[in-house]
């Protein structure tokens, strides 16, 4: 099964949940799609890491063939091209790699070249295969890295746990595409509840079944996220109490389920409930 773990809001415990779910599975794959700020690898500390550069295609014009007709400049809706003094200038950072300029060029002067925008690192930690996507600093578009990550994950037979980017933008959307089930992690604040609503909507639009994990729950206190789940018919699969010790373990990027049998049991229970829900 392929489980996508979302939160909408950052800092709710999405990485803790996705890392520990993978950690208590008999053998699993953990995929970190939060390519702007990947953190899962800090918990797993994988061995034997193999790095792959993710590239996108950008155009270059052959000066011998290019005659400055400006067809490509006029075609490009992202304004990634400009022409002056017998030279085509390409602004790689806004190029969307659509390939259109090379198609419209009447002189076949444009060819496409690969440019690195980030990396996918693959390693192993115990029984877990860890795929980490990282976008290079200064890059604007991280989608192709997520695409490559999910390609690698789809090649695996074992259960896949996808740590998704925060929010519900196109990056989050890309991560949800192949999931069988979505876990929505939230915290008991109005911020958490508000953002929970957004990712619940994303899952609904994509027709993905959902379950919520309420994290940092304080006994006896009002929980706006719990209220949201109840009002919207979202099954609550686990309530993780606010726990200083658990917080400290996560601050040190220790995998709680590997460090303590109590936490191991807690995450195994959650995994069972998810497996039932998917089954």
């Amino acid at each position, binding site marked *: 099964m392929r489980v996508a773990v979302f939160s909408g809001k950052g800092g709710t415990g999405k990485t803790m949940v996705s890392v520990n779910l993978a950690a208590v599975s008999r053998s699993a794959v953990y995929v970190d799609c939060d390519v702007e700020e990947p953190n899962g690898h800090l918990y797993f500390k994988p061995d034997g890491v193999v790095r792959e550069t993710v590239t996108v295609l950008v155009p270059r014009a052959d000066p011998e063939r290019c005659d400055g007709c*400006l067809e490509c*400049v006029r075609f*490009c*809706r*992202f*304004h*990634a*091209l*400009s*022409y*002056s*003094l017998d*030279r085509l*200038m390409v*602004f790689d*950072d*806004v190029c*969307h790699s659509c390939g259109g300029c090379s198609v419209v060029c009447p002189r076949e002067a444009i060819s496409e070249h690969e440019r690195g925008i980030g990396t996918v690192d693959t390693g192993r930690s115990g029984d877990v295969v860890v795929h980490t996507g990282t976008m290079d600093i200064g890059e*604007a*578009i991280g*989608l192709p890295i997520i695409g490559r990550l999910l390609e690698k994950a789809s090649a695996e037979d074992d259960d896949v746990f996808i740590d998704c980017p925060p929010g519900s933008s*196109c990056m989050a959307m890309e991560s949800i595409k192949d999931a069988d089930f979505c876990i929505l992690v939230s915290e008991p604040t109005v911020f958490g509840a508000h953002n929970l609503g957004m990712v619940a909507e994303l899952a609904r639009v994509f027709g993905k079944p959902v379950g919520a994990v309420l994290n940092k729950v304080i006994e006896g206190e009002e929980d706006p996220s719990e209220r949201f789940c109840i009002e919207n018919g979202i099954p609550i699969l686990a309530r993780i109490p606010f726990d200083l010790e658990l917080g400290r373990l996560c601050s040190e990027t220790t995998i709680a389920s590997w460090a303590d049998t109590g936490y191991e049991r807690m995450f195994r229970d959650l995994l069972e409930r998810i497996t039932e829900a998917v089954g």
Partner: protein
Amino acid sequence: MSARGGQEDNMKIVVPIENETEDSNINPSLGRAPYYLLYDTETEAAEIIANTSKDSPSGAGVAAAQLMIDAGAEVLLTPRCGDRAYAALKGAGIKIMLLPSGTAKSGIAAYLEGGLSELDTVVKGHHGAH
């Protein structure tokens, strides 16, 4: 207006403007200015060009640069310039001068009298929609 002082004769000067009139004030955004004033020092005539890319979600600066390059501008007077437009304009050999405010006409006169200095700070680009 007429060419004076230490400036070369016969050049085209372009300025981003607010309104479609020759007396317009300058517009502070190069890529999203609704119009450009193109002044030819040889004929002493001014032409107003509409900026068709001003609402483009990304790359408006680059589009504006191409517009100016195609119009044959040799000097640009502007309060600021984005990094990509700057690269495109410099690539075309266009001189970029800092004109903080006022009308296009007074800016052009100031330039021709040698009263403006080159723009040397660029605005980091927005990366548009995706």
